[in-house]
Protein backbone atom coordinates (compact mmCIF):
# COMPACT_ATOMS: atom_id res chain seq x y z
CA UNK A 1 0.00 0.00 0.00
CA UNK A 2 1.25 3.44 -0.76
CA UNK A 3 2.39 5.15 2.37
CA UNK A 4 3.72 8.13 0.62
CA UNK A 5 2.86 10.68 3.21
CA UNK A 6 5.37 9.86 5.93
CA UNK A 7 8.54 10.99 4.21
CA UNK A 8 8.87 13.32 1.28
CA UNK A 9 9.99 11.24 -1.62
CA UNK A 10 13.18 12.14 -3.38
CA UNK A 11 12.01 10.84 -6.66
CA UNK A 12 11.00 14.15 -8.19
CA UNK A 13 14.67 14.77 -8.81
CA UNK A 14 14.55 11.79 -11.12
CA UNK A 15 12.42 13.37 -13.77
CA UNK A 16 15.33 14.71 -15.78
CA UNK A 17 13.54 13.81 -18.96
CA UNK A 18 10.63 16.02 -18.05
CA UNK A 19 12.82 19.10 -17.57
CA UNK A 20 13.37 21.70 -20.22
CA UNK A 21 16.68 20.81 -21.83
CA UNK A 22 18.33 24.14 -20.93
CA UNK A 23 18.38 23.08 -17.29
CA UNK A 24 20.64 20.16 -18.01
CA UNK A 25 23.57 22.52 -18.47
CA UNK A 26 22.43 25.15 -16.01
CA UNK A 27 22.74 22.89 -13.00
CA UNK A 28 26.31 21.60 -13.53
CA UNK A 29 27.49 25.07 -14.61
CA UNK A 30 26.15 26.78 -11.54
CA UNK A 31 27.67 24.05 -9.38
CA UNK A 32 31.10 24.58 -10.93
CA UNK A 33 30.71 28.32 -10.38
CA UNK A 34 29.68 27.78 -6.77
CA UNK A 35 32.68 25.50 -6.13
CA UNK A 36 35.02 28.05 -7.71
CA UNK A 37 33.68 30.82 -5.50
CA UNK A 38 33.93 28.59 -2.43
CA UNK A 39 37.51 27.62 -3.29
CA UNK A 40 38.45 31.27 -3.69
CA UNK A 41 36.66 32.34 -0.51
CA UNK A 42 39.77 32.59 1.74
CA UNK A 43 41.35 35.11 -0.62
CA UNK A 44 38.66 37.71 -0.02
CA UNK A 45 36.53 36.74 2.98
CA UNK A 46 37.50 37.32 6.62
CA UNK A 47 38.28 34.29 8.81
CA UNK A 48 34.94 34.57 10.52
CA UNK A 49 33.17 33.60 7.31
CA UNK A 50 35.64 30.85 6.60
CA UNK A 51 34.68 29.28 9.91
CA UNK A 52 31.01 29.69 9.12
CA UNK A 53 31.32 28.10 5.68
CA UNK A 54 33.48 25.27 7.03
CA UNK A 55 30.71 24.46 9.45
CA UNK A 56 28.08 24.68 6.70
CA UNK A 57 30.00 22.23 4.54
CA UNK A 58 30.47 19.72 7.34
CA UNK A 59 26.86 19.96 8.52
CA UNK A 60 25.70 19.82 4.92
CA UNK A 61 27.47 16.51 4.43
CA UNK A 62 25.99 15.27 7.71
CA UNK A 63 22.49 16.26 6.56
CA UNK A 64 22.99 14.86 3.03
CA UNK A 65 24.05 11.52 4.49
CA UNK A 66 20.91 11.57 6.63
CA UNK A 67 18.78 12.32 3.58
CA UNK A 68 19.96 9.13 1.87
CA UNK A 69 17.87 7.22 4.39
CA UNK A 70 15.19 9.88 4.95
CA UNK A 71 14.35 11.42 1.59
CA UNK A 72 15.53 8.58 -0.61
CA UNK A 73 14.67 5.48 1.40
CA UNK A 74 11.80 6.82 3.49
CA UNK A 75 13.19 6.01 6.93
CA UNK A 76 13.16 8.71 9.62
CA UNK A 77 16.17 8.12 11.88
CA UNK A 78 16.47 10.06 15.12
CA UNK A 79 19.86 8.65 15.97
CA UNK A 80 22.09 9.87 13.19
CA UNK A 81 24.40 11.76 15.58
CA UNK A 82 25.72 8.42 16.83
CA UNK A 83 27.67 8.04 13.59
CA UNK A 84 28.71 11.69 13.47
CA UNK A 85 30.04 11.38 17.02
CA UNK A 86 31.68 8.05 16.28
CA UNK A 87 33.61 9.71 13.46
CA UNK A 88 34.56 12.66 15.66
CA UNK A 89 35.83 10.45 18.51
CA UNK A 90 37.71 8.12 16.18
CA UNK A 91 39.56 10.99 14.54
CA UNK A 92 40.22 12.78 17.82
CA UNK A 93 41.61 9.64 19.46
CA UNK A 94 43.73 8.67 16.49
CA UNK A 95 45.19 12.16 16.25
CA UNK A 96 45.83 12.22 19.99
CA UNK A 97 47.24 8.74 20.57
CA UNK A 98 48.58 7.55 17.22
CA UNK A 99 49.36 10.89 15.55
CA UNK A 100 48.15 9.58 12.22
CA UNK A 101 48.03 11.78 9.12
CA UNK A 102 44.52 13.24 8.83
CA UNK A 103 43.48 11.31 5.72
CA UNK A 104 43.97 7.97 7.48
CA UNK A 105 42.04 9.19 10.49
CA UNK A 106 39.17 10.18 8.18
CA UNK A 107 39.13 6.77 6.54
CA UNK A 108 39.28 5.00 9.88
CA UNK A 109 36.38 7.15 11.11
CA UNK A 110 34.29 6.14 8.13
CA UNK A 111 35.02 2.52 8.93
CA UNK A 112 34.11 2.73 12.63
CA UNK A 113 30.96 4.75 11.91
CA UNK A 114 29.90 2.26 9.23
CA UNK A 115 30.49 -0.62 11.65
CA UNK A 116 28.36 1.05 14.31
CA UNK A 117 25.69 1.71 11.67
CA UNK A 118 25.80 -1.95 10.69
CA UNK A 119 25.08 -3.02 14.28
CA UNK A 120 22.38 -0.42 14.98
CA UNK A 121 20.91 -0.81 11.49
CA UNK A 122 20.78 -4.59 11.74
CA UNK A 123 18.62 -4.27 14.83
CA UNK A 124 16.49 -1.34 13.59
CA UNK A 125 15.74 -1.57 9.88
CA UNK A 126 13.33 -4.45 10.30
CA UNK A 127 11.00 -2.07 12.11
CA UNK A 128 8.89 0.41 10.25
CA UNK A 129 8.21 4.09 10.64
CA UNK A 130 7.57 5.16 14.23
CA UNK A 131 9.22 2.11 15.74
CA UNK A 132 12.29 2.56 13.58
CA UNK A 133 12.50 6.22 14.63
CA UNK A 134 12.13 5.31 18.30
CA UNK A 135 14.71 2.54 18.16
CA UNK A 136 17.30 4.70 16.41
CA UNK A 137 16.64 7.39 19.03
CA UNK A 138 17.16 4.83 21.80
CA UNK A 139 20.40 3.54 20.29
CA UNK A 140 21.59 7.11 19.84
CA UNK A 141 20.98 7.78 23.52
CA UNK A 142 22.84 4.61 24.46
CA UNK A 143 25.87 5.66 22.44
CA UNK A 144 25.70 9.07 24.11
CA UNK A 145 25.55 7.45 27.54
CA UNK A 146 28.58 5.30 26.76
CA UNK A 147 30.62 8.30 25.62
CA UNK A 148 29.54 10.19 28.69
CA UNK A 149 30.19 7.45 31.27
CA UNK A 150 33.21 5.57 29.98
CA UNK A 151 35.60 8.15 31.35
CA UNK A 152 38.78 6.12 30.98
CA UNK A 153 38.30 5.90 27.24
CA UNK A 154 36.35 9.01 26.30
CA UNK A 155 37.28 11.43 29.09
CA UNK A 156 33.58 11.83 29.97
CA UNK A 157 31.84 15.13 29.49
CA UNK A 158 35.10 16.99 28.80
CA UNK A 159 35.62 14.95 25.69
CA UNK A 160 38.86 14.41 23.81
CA UNK A 161 40.99 17.53 23.43
CA UNK A 162 44.61 18.47 23.01
CA UNK A 163 45.17 16.61 19.75
CA UNK A 164 47.19 18.28 17.05
CA UNK A 165 46.72 18.45 13.31
CA UNK A 166 50.01 17.47 11.73
CA UNK A 167 50.09 16.51 8.08
CA UNK A 168 47.30 15.49 5.78
CA UNK A 169 49.03 12.45 4.30
CA UNK A 170 49.26 11.30 0.70
CA UNK A 171 52.47 13.31 0.40
CA UNK A 172 50.59 16.62 0.43
CA UNK A 173 52.35 19.41 2.25
CA UNK A 174 49.42 21.22 3.88
CA UNK A 175 49.45 23.57 6.87
CA UNK A 176 46.27 22.18 8.36
CA UNK A 177 46.52 24.40 11.43
CA UNK A 178 45.72 27.35 9.17
CA UNK A 179 41.90 27.66 9.09
CA UNK A 180 41.99 28.66 5.42
CA UNK A 181 43.90 25.49 4.53
CA UNK A 182 41.69 23.31 6.69
CA UNK A 183 38.66 24.94 5.05
CA UNK A 184 39.92 23.98 1.58
CA UNK A 185 40.57 20.43 2.74
CA UNK A 186 37.00 20.27 4.06
CA UNK A 187 35.70 21.71 0.81
CA UNK A 188 37.56 19.10 -1.26
CA UNK A 189 36.57 16.17 0.96
CA UNK A 190 32.91 17.24 1.17
CA UNK A 191 32.76 17.80 -2.60
CA UNK A 192 34.13 14.32 -3.28
CA UNK A 193 31.88 12.72 -0.68
CA UNK A 194 28.84 14.56 -2.06
CA UNK A 195 29.70 13.44 -5.58
CA UNK A 196 29.91 9.82 -4.44
CA UNK A 197 26.62 10.11 -2.55
CA UNK A 198 25.01 11.66 -5.59
CA UNK A 199 26.25 8.86 -7.80
CA UNK A 200 24.74 6.37 -5.37
CA UNK A 201 21.35 8.10 -5.54
CA UNK A 202 21.41 7.89 -9.35
CA UNK A 203 22.48 4.23 -9.48
CA UNK A 204 20.29 1.16 -9.77
CA UNK A 205 20.68 0.83 -6.02
CA UNK A 206 19.42 4.41 -5.65
CA UNK A 207 16.41 3.57 -7.79
CA UNK A 208 15.65 0.66 -5.45
CA UNK A 209 15.81 3.04 -2.49
CA UNK A 210 13.38 5.48 -4.11
CA UNK A 211 11.04 2.64 -4.93
CA UNK A 212 11.29 1.34 -1.35
CA UNK A 213 10.50 4.77 0.06
CA UNK A 214 7.28 4.80 -1.86
CA UNK A 215 6.15 1.22 -1.66
CA UNK A 216 8.39 -1.30 0.09
CA UNK A 217 5.89 -4.11 -0.33
CA UNK A 218 5.75 -3.86 -4.10
CA UNK A 219 9.55 -3.78 -4.21
CA UNK A 220 9.63 -7.06 -2.31
CA UNK A 221 7.22 -8.58 -4.83
CA UNK A 222 9.68 -7.59 -7.56
CA UNK A 223 12.19 -9.97 -5.99
CA UNK A 224 14.19 -7.48 -3.95
CA UNK A 225 15.22 -7.99 -0.36
CA UNK A 226 13.96 -4.73 1.11
CA UNK A 227 15.56 -5.19 4.50
CA UNK A 228 19.02 -5.67 3.06
CA UNK A 229 18.64 -2.53 0.97
CA UNK A 230 17.47 -0.55 3.96
CA UNK A 231 20.45 -1.81 5.92
CA UNK A 232 22.88 -0.98 3.12
CA UNK A 233 21.47 2.55 2.87
CA UNK A 234 21.71 2.91 6.63
CA UNK A 235 25.37 1.82 6.65
CA UNK A 236 26.30 4.13 3.77
CA UNK A 237 24.55 7.02 5.52
CA UNK A 238 26.39 6.18 8.74
CA UNK A 239 29.70 6.06 6.90
CA UNK A 240 29.29 9.56 5.48
CA UNK A 241 27.97 10.90 8.78
CA UNK A 242 31.16 9.49 10.31
CA UNK A 243 33.22 11.37 7.74
CA UNK A 244 31.37 14.59 8.61
CA UNK A 245 32.08 14.02 12.30
CA UNK A 246 35.71 13.25 11.54
CA UNK A 247 36.03 16.61 9.78
CA UNK A 248 34.22 18.34 12.62
CA UNK A 249 36.45 17.24 15.54
CA UNK A 250 39.66 18.94 14.28
CA UNK A 251 37.60 22.00 13.29
CA UNK A 252 36.09 22.22 16.75
CA UNK A 253 39.33 21.06 18.48
CA UNK A 254 37.31 18.63 20.57
CA UNK A 255 35.24 15.48 20.33
CA UNK A 256 32.64 15.74 23.07
CA UNK A 257 29.45 13.91 24.06
CA UNK A 258 27.41 16.90 22.78
CA UNK A 259 28.12 15.65 19.28
CA UNK A 260 26.29 12.43 20.14
CA UNK A 261 23.38 14.03 21.95
CA UNK A 262 19.90 13.47 20.57
CA UNK A 263 19.61 17.17 19.87
CA UNK A 264 22.54 16.71 17.47
CA UNK A 265 20.47 14.00 15.76
CA UNK A 266 17.68 16.52 15.30
CA UNK A 267 19.91 18.90 13.34
CA UNK A 268 20.14 16.91 10.08
CA UNK A 269 16.38 16.33 10.31
CA UNK A 270 15.72 20.06 10.62
CA UNK A 271 18.28 20.99 7.98
CA UNK A 272 16.85 18.52 5.51
CA UNK A 273 13.30 19.72 6.05
CA UNK A 274 14.46 23.35 5.83
CA UNK A 275 16.26 22.78 2.54
CA UNK A 276 14.01 20.13 1.08
CA UNK A 277 14.39 16.36 1.05
CA UNK A 278 13.30 16.08 -2.58
CA UNK A 279 16.52 17.40 -4.10
CA UNK A 280 20.01 16.12 -3.56
CA UNK A 281 21.35 19.57 -2.61
CA UNK A 282 18.39 20.37 -0.36
CA UNK A 283 20.17 19.28 2.85
CA UNK A 284 23.24 21.40 1.99
CA UNK A 285 20.98 24.35 1.38
CA UNK A 286 19.20 23.66 4.65
CA UNK A 287 22.51 23.40 6.50
CA UNK A 288 23.54 26.79 5.12
CA UNK A 289 20.28 28.37 6.22
CA UNK A 290 20.48 26.72 9.61
CA UNK A 291 24.07 27.76 10.34
CA UNK A 292 23.65 31.29 8.95
CA UNK A 293 20.41 31.86 10.84
CA UNK A 294 21.98 30.51 14.01
CA UNK A 295 25.06 32.71 13.59
CA UNK A 296 23.14 35.89 12.86
CA UNK A 297 20.31 35.43 15.28
CA UNK A 298 22.57 34.50 18.19
CA UNK A 299 24.51 37.73 17.62
CA UNK A 300 21.31 39.69 18.33
CA UNK A 301 19.44 37.60 20.83
CA UNK A 302 19.86 34.56 23.04
CA UNK A 303 16.53 33.15 21.92
CA UNK A 304 17.88 31.41 18.84
CA UNK A 305 15.74 28.34 19.44
CA UNK A 306 12.57 30.43 19.53
CA UNK A 307 13.36 31.99 16.16
CA UNK A 308 14.39 28.66 14.72
CA UNK A 309 11.07 27.26 15.91
CA UNK A 310 9.12 30.07 14.27
CA UNK A 311 11.09 29.71 11.04
CA UNK A 312 10.51 25.96 10.96
CA UNK A 313 6.80 26.26 11.68
CA UNK A 314 6.43 28.77 8.83
CA UNK A 315 8.41 26.57 6.50
CA UNK A 316 6.40 23.49 7.21
CA UNK A 317 3.21 25.48 6.70
CA UNK A 318 4.20 27.31 3.52
CA UNK A 319 7.15 25.46 1.98
CA UNK A 320 6.24 21.84 2.36
CA UNK A 321 9.06 20.73 0.10
CA UNK A 322 11.71 22.89 1.78
CA UNK A 323 13.11 26.18 0.57
CA UNK A 324 15.37 24.86 -2.20
CA UNK A 325 12.78 22.24 -3.10
CA UNK A 326 9.99 24.80 -3.44
CA UNK A 327 12.17 27.21 -5.42
CA UNK A 328 13.33 24.53 -7.85
CA UNK A 329 9.81 23.14 -8.17
CA UNK A 330 8.64 26.60 -9.18
CA UNK A 331 11.47 27.07 -11.66
CA UNK A 332 11.03 23.66 -13.21
CA UNK A 333 7.23 24.05 -13.11
CA UNK A 334 6.72 20.58 -11.78
Amino acid at each position, binding site marked *: *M*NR*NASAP*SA*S*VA*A*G*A*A*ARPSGWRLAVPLSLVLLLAVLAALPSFAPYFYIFVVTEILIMGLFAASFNLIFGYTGMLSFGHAAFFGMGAYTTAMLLLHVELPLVWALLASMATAALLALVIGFLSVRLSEVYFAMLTLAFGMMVYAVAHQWRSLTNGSDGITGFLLRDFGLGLDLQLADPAVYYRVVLAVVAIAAA*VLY*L*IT*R*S*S*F*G*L*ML*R*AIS*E*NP*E*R*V*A*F*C*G*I*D*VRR*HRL*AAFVIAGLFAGLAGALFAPFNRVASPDMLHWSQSAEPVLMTILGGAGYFLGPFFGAAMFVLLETWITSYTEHWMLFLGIALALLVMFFRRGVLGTLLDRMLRR
Partner: protein
Amino acid sequence: MTEPILSVTGLGKAFGGVRAVDGVSLEVMPRETVALIGPNGAGKTTFYNMISGRMKPSSGRVRFQGRDITGLPPHAISRLGVSRSFQINNVFTELTARENVEVALTALHGRAFSLFRPASRDRRLLAEADAVLERLGLRPLADTRAGVLSYGDKRLLEIAIVLATRPKLVLLDEPTAGMTPEETRHVTRLIRGLAETGEYTFLITEHDMNVVFDLADRIVVMHRGRLLAQGTPEQIRSDRAVREAYLGEEESA
Protein backbone atom coordinates in the same frame (compact mmCIF):
# COMPACT_ATOMS: atom_id res chain seq x y z
CA MET B 1 2.68 -37.33 -16.64
CA THR B 2 4.09 -33.87 -16.15
CA GLU B 3 4.49 -32.47 -12.66
CA PRO B 4 2.18 -29.64 -11.59
CA ILE B 5 3.93 -26.27 -11.51
CA LEU B 6 1.86 -25.24 -8.51
CA SER B 7 0.54 -27.62 -5.94
CA VAL B 8 -1.44 -26.37 -2.98
CA THR B 9 -2.61 -28.73 -0.28
CA GLY B 10 -5.04 -28.00 2.55
CA LEU B 11 -4.28 -24.30 2.49
CA GLY B 12 -6.09 -22.32 5.20
CA LYS B 13 -6.10 -18.84 6.65
CA ALA B 14 -8.15 -17.61 9.56
CA PHE B 15 -8.56 -13.99 10.57
CA GLY B 16 -9.75 -14.17 14.14
CA GLY B 17 -12.80 -16.37 13.83
CA VAL B 18 -13.24 -15.87 10.08
CA ARG B 19 -11.88 -18.68 7.92
CA ALA B 20 -11.10 -16.65 4.82
CA VAL B 21 -9.55 -19.69 3.14
CA ASP B 22 -10.51 -23.07 4.46
CA GLY B 23 -8.57 -26.15 3.42
CA VAL B 24 -8.08 -25.45 -0.28
CA SER B 25 -6.18 -27.96 -2.42
CA LEU B 26 -5.39 -27.15 -6.02
CA GLU B 27 -2.97 -28.23 -8.72
CA VAL B 28 -2.01 -26.12 -11.70
CA MET B 29 -0.17 -27.64 -14.66
CA PRO B 30 2.56 -25.83 -16.59
CA ARG B 31 1.28 -23.50 -19.36
CA GLU B 32 -2.27 -23.81 -18.11
CA THR B 33 -4.52 -20.78 -17.69
CA VAL B 34 -6.71 -21.25 -14.66
CA ALA B 35 -9.41 -18.79 -13.68
CA LEU B 36 -10.18 -18.53 -9.99
CA ILE B 37 -13.66 -17.13 -9.54
CA GLY B 38 -16.03 -16.60 -6.67
CA PRO B 39 -18.25 -13.95 -5.12
CA ASN B 40 -16.82 -11.04 -3.11
CA GLY B 41 -15.15 -12.20 0.06
CA ALA B 42 -14.75 -15.77 -1.23
CA GLY B 43 -11.07 -15.71 -0.25
CA LYS B 44 -9.42 -15.37 -3.66
CA THR B 45 -7.08 -12.52 -2.75
CA THR B 46 -6.21 -14.20 0.54
CA PHE B 47 -5.37 -17.34 -1.43
CA TYR B 48 -3.01 -15.30 -3.64
CA ASN B 49 -1.53 -13.61 -0.60
CA MET B 50 -0.49 -16.96 0.81
CA ILE B 51 0.98 -18.27 -2.44
CA SER B 52 2.96 -15.08 -3.05
CA GLY B 53 4.29 -14.82 0.50
CA ARG B 54 2.35 -11.78 1.59
CA MET B 55 0.64 -13.77 4.33
CA LYS B 56 1.71 -16.88 6.17
CA PRO B 57 -0.90 -19.65 5.94
CA SER B 58 -2.56 -20.89 9.13
CA SER B 59 -2.38 -24.38 7.69
CA GLY B 60 -1.40 -26.28 4.55
CA ARG B 61 1.51 -26.25 2.13
CA VAL B 62 2.36 -24.52 -1.13
CA ARG B 63 4.72 -26.18 -3.59
CA PHE B 64 6.12 -24.50 -6.69
CA GLN B 65 7.92 -26.70 -9.21
CA GLY B 66 8.11 -29.38 -6.59
CA ARG B 67 9.71 -27.11 -4.04
CA ASP B 68 8.04 -26.19 -0.77
CA ILE B 69 7.69 -22.40 -0.70
CA THR B 70 5.27 -22.17 2.23
CA GLY B 71 6.05 -19.13 4.34
CA LEU B 72 9.00 -17.91 2.26
CA PRO B 73 9.32 -14.11 2.11
CA PRO B 74 7.83 -12.41 -1.00
CA HIS B 75 11.18 -11.53 -2.58
CA ALA B 76 12.34 -15.15 -2.40
CA ILE B 77 9.12 -16.44 -3.97
CA SER B 78 9.32 -13.78 -6.67
CA ARG B 79 12.88 -14.81 -7.51
CA LEU B 80 11.81 -18.41 -7.94
CA GLY B 81 9.43 -17.29 -10.67
CA VAL B 82 6.07 -16.53 -9.07
CA SER B 83 4.87 -13.01 -9.71
CA ARG B 84 1.59 -11.34 -8.89
CA SER B 85 -0.40 -8.27 -9.70
CA PHE B 86 -2.60 -6.49 -7.22
CA GLN B 87 -6.34 -6.00 -7.16
CA ILE B 88 -5.80 -2.34 -6.27
CA ASN B 89 -3.25 -0.46 -8.39
CA ASN B 90 0.05 -0.77 -6.64
CA VAL B 91 2.57 0.94 -8.91
CA PHE B 92 5.31 3.41 -7.93
CA THR B 93 3.47 6.66 -8.55
CA GLU B 94 6.56 8.86 -8.06
CA LEU B 95 8.62 6.96 -10.62
CA THR B 96 8.22 7.07 -14.38
CA ALA B 97 6.55 4.15 -16.14
CA ARG B 98 9.96 2.98 -17.35
CA GLU B 99 11.45 3.19 -13.87
CA ASN B 100 8.57 1.11 -12.55
CA VAL B 101 9.56 -1.67 -14.90
CA GLU B 102 13.25 -1.09 -14.18
CA VAL B 103 12.68 -1.88 -10.50
CA ALA B 104 11.65 -5.40 -11.44
CA LEU B 105 14.40 -5.76 -14.06
CA THR B 106 17.09 -4.57 -11.67
CA ALA B 107 16.35 -7.42 -9.33
CA LEU B 108 16.22 -9.89 -12.19
CA HIS B 109 19.64 -8.89 -13.49
CA GLY B 110 21.31 -8.71 -10.09
CA ARG B 111 21.88 -4.98 -10.29
CA ALA B 112 20.06 -4.15 -7.08
CA PHE B 113 23.37 -3.55 -5.32
CA SER B 114 25.04 -1.79 -8.22
CA LEU B 115 26.04 1.34 -6.31
CA PHE B 116 27.93 3.63 -8.65
CA ARG B 117 26.67 2.90 -12.12
CA PRO B 118 24.02 5.41 -13.14
CA ALA B 119 20.75 3.61 -13.78
CA SER B 120 20.18 5.88 -16.78
CA ARG B 121 23.31 4.52 -18.50
CA ASP B 122 22.34 0.89 -18.25
CA ARG B 123 21.40 0.53 -21.89
CA ARG B 124 20.56 -3.16 -21.82
CA LEU B 125 18.20 -2.70 -18.93
CA LEU B 126 16.56 0.36 -20.48
CA ALA B 127 16.07 -1.44 -23.77
CA GLU B 128 14.51 -4.36 -21.99
CA ALA B 129 12.24 -2.04 -20.00
CA ASP B 130 11.10 -0.39 -23.21
CA ALA B 131 10.43 -3.78 -24.77
CA VAL B 132 8.17 -4.73 -21.86
CA LEU B 133 6.35 -1.40 -22.11
CA GLU B 134 6.01 -1.86 -25.85
CA ARG B 135 4.32 -5.19 -25.33
CA LEU B 136 1.61 -3.51 -23.25
CA GLY B 137 1.32 -0.51 -25.52
CA LEU B 138 2.78 1.77 -22.86
CA ARG B 139 5.96 2.66 -24.73
CA PRO B 140 4.83 6.25 -25.58
CA LEU B 141 4.25 6.83 -21.87
CA ALA B 142 7.66 5.54 -20.74
CA ASP B 143 8.81 8.89 -19.37
CA THR B 144 5.52 9.77 -17.74
CA ARG B 145 5.29 9.71 -13.97
CA ALA B 146 3.13 6.72 -13.11
CA GLY B 147 1.05 8.80 -10.73
CA VAL B 148 -0.46 10.79 -13.58
CA LEU B 149 -1.25 7.81 -15.81
CA SER B 150 -4.92 7.03 -16.40
CA TYR B 151 -6.46 4.32 -14.30
CA GLY B 152 -6.39 1.83 -17.16
CA ASP B 153 -2.75 2.59 -17.97
CA LYS B 154 -1.81 2.09 -14.32
CA ARG B 155 -3.55 -1.26 -14.51
CA LEU B 156 -1.44 -2.13 -17.57
CA LEU B 157 1.71 -0.94 -15.84
CA GLU B 158 0.81 -3.25 -12.98
CA ILE B 159 0.98 -6.14 -15.46
CA ALA B 160 4.18 -4.77 -17.03
CA ILE B 161 5.93 -4.92 -13.65
CA VAL B 162 4.77 -8.50 -13.21
CA LEU B 163 6.04 -9.55 -16.65
CA ALA B 164 9.38 -7.82 -16.15
CA THR B 165 10.29 -10.25 -13.38
CA ARG B 166 10.11 -13.01 -16.06
CA PRO B 167 7.77 -15.17 -14.03
CA LYS B 168 6.84 -18.75 -14.80
CA LEU B 169 3.68 -18.55 -12.75
CA VAL B 170 1.67 -15.34 -12.99
CA LEU B 171 -1.04 -14.53 -10.48
CA LEU B 172 -3.33 -11.80 -11.75
CA ASP B 173 -5.80 -10.39 -9.23
CA GLU B 174 -8.68 -8.92 -11.21
CA PRO B 175 -6.52 -7.46 -13.99
CA THR B 176 -9.45 -5.78 -15.74
CA ALA B 177 -11.21 -4.41 -12.65
CA GLY B 178 -12.45 -0.89 -13.34
CA MET B 179 -11.37 -0.89 -16.98
CA THR B 180 -13.44 0.34 -19.87
CA PRO B 181 -14.80 -2.41 -22.18
CA GLU B 182 -12.16 -1.51 -24.74
CA GLU B 183 -9.31 -1.68 -22.24
CA THR B 184 -10.72 -4.98 -21.02
CA ARG B 185 -10.61 -6.40 -24.54
CA HIS B 186 -7.05 -5.14 -24.93
CA VAL B 187 -5.93 -6.85 -21.72
CA THR B 188 -7.80 -10.06 -22.58
CA ARG B 189 -6.10 -10.21 -25.97
CA LEU B 190 -2.78 -9.47 -24.34
CA ILE B 191 -3.11 -12.25 -21.78
CA ARG B 192 -4.22 -14.70 -24.45
CA GLY B 193 -1.18 -13.76 -26.52
CA LEU B 194 1.10 -14.31 -23.57
CA ALA B 195 -0.53 -17.63 -22.74
CA GLU B 196 -0.06 -18.77 -26.33
CA THR B 197 3.69 -18.20 -26.13
CA GLY B 198 3.79 -21.16 -23.76
CA GLU B 199 6.17 -19.33 -21.43
CA TYR B 200 3.68 -18.63 -18.72
CA THR B 201 1.22 -20.32 -16.44
CA PHE B 202 -1.65 -18.07 -15.40
CA LEU B 203 -3.85 -18.04 -12.37
CA ILE B 204 -6.40 -15.27 -12.85
CA THR B 205 -9.20 -13.99 -10.67
CA GLU B 206 -11.87 -12.07 -12.49
CA HIS B 207 -15.41 -10.92 -11.97
CA ASP B 208 -15.95 -10.31 -15.68
CA MET B 209 -17.34 -13.64 -16.91
CA ASN B 210 -16.61 -12.83 -20.55
CA VAL B 211 -12.94 -12.55 -19.73
CA VAL B 212 -13.04 -15.73 -17.68
CA PHE B 213 -14.74 -17.84 -20.32
CA ASP B 214 -12.57 -16.31 -22.99
CA LEU B 215 -9.23 -17.11 -21.36
CA ALA B 216 -9.57 -20.04 -19.03
CA ASP B 217 -8.58 -23.61 -19.84
CA ARG B 218 -10.03 -24.48 -16.49
CA ILE B 219 -12.18 -22.67 -13.98
CA VAL B 220 -11.96 -23.06 -10.22
CA VAL B 221 -14.82 -21.73 -8.14
CA MET B 222 -14.31 -20.57 -4.57
CA HIS B 223 -17.07 -19.86 -2.15
CA ARG B 224 -16.68 -18.90 1.51
CA GLY B 225 -13.08 -20.00 1.58
CA ARG B 226 -13.68 -23.42 0.06
CA LEU B 227 -13.40 -24.86 -3.40
CA LEU B 228 -16.92 -25.31 -4.67
CA ALA B 229 -16.22 -26.79 -8.08
CA GLN B 230 -13.68 -26.96 -10.83
CA GLY B 231 -13.74 -27.96 -14.44
CA THR B 232 -13.76 -26.78 -18.02
CA PRO B 233 -15.70 -23.62 -18.84
CA GLU B 234 -18.56 -25.77 -20.21
CA GLN B 235 -18.74 -27.88 -17.08
CA ILE B 236 -18.76 -24.82 -14.84
CA ARG B 237 -21.39 -23.08 -16.91
CA SER B 238 -23.76 -25.98 -16.38
CA ASP B 239 -22.90 -26.69 -12.74
CA ARG B 240 -25.95 -26.10 -10.57
CA ALA B 241 -24.13 -25.40 -7.32
CA VAL B 242 -22.00 -22.81 -9.08
CA ARG B 243 -25.00 -21.14 -10.65
CA GLU B 244 -26.64 -20.86 -7.27
CA ALA B 245 -23.59 -19.65 -5.42
CA TYR B 246 -22.20 -17.35 -7.97
CA LEU B 247 -23.35 -17.11 -11.53
CA GLY B 248 -26.96 -16.73 -10.41
CA GLU B 249 -26.05 -13.76 -8.27
CA GLU B 250 -24.12 -12.34 -11.13
CA GLU B 251 -27.00 -12.64 -13.56
CA SER B 252 -29.60 -11.28 -11.20
CA ALA B 253 -27.32 -8.37 -10.25
